[in-house]
């Protein structure tokens, strides 16, 4: 199945892109996707990275076809 993955801030910098369409096995969880991309792009300090699945920060979920998964480094607004 396909999911859209978005990268922001320092993660976009490490990935060299802000978005990609990934083919993942059916049943993949958000956490598994995170682990895979953390290794792939050598993201430092992965505990500080939050995932939003369809804009929802609760990432203890299984992914579905067409989901939008965002990799969010620490917030710095204000």
């Amino acid at each position: 199945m396909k999911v859209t993955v978005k990268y922001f801030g320092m993660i976009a910098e490490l990935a060299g892109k802000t978005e990609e369409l990934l083919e993942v096995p059916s049943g993949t969880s958000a956490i598994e996707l995170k682990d895979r991309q953390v290794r792939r792009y050598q993201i430092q300090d992965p505990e500080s990275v939050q995932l939003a699945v369809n804009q929802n920060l609760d990432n203890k979920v299984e992914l579905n076809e067409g989901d939008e998964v965002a990799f969010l480094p620490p917030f710095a607004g204000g």
Partner: protein
Amino acid sequence: MDKKKPKKVFVQGAIPPEKIANSIANHQSKTNIGAHSIFLGQIRADEIDGKTVSAIDYSAYEEMAENVFHEIREAAFAKFDITCAHIYHSLGEVKTGEICLFVFTSSAHRKIAIEACNYFVEEIKANVPIFGKEIFEDETHQWKVNK
């Protein structure tokens, strides 16, 4: 009405002082207001490892951020008896000394306006997916993290 309408929070570049004056002037017809509380975030020329910050380049997960801003507004109006509330945050480059955040709350009474303003500032810092690239004078950069 002021409460329900989703509002655009992000502005491109720095927030000019005139925008703040206009916001204040726009409230002079609301004669049930007794107190305004305003918070402004300004870019500091921090020195980090001998290098000085010259600007912050802000980016955001915009669709989610606008939704989170809207949720914060809803929660604030449920929690505080405020007349109105406005938030503006910069995207893109904001130079040191310029304003990147403008929070403006109004109420009949001062304590409510002040508490609501603080609530907005803390919620924005903690919960809105905004990212800041601190650009040094030598064009190198590092990524800002809220404490």
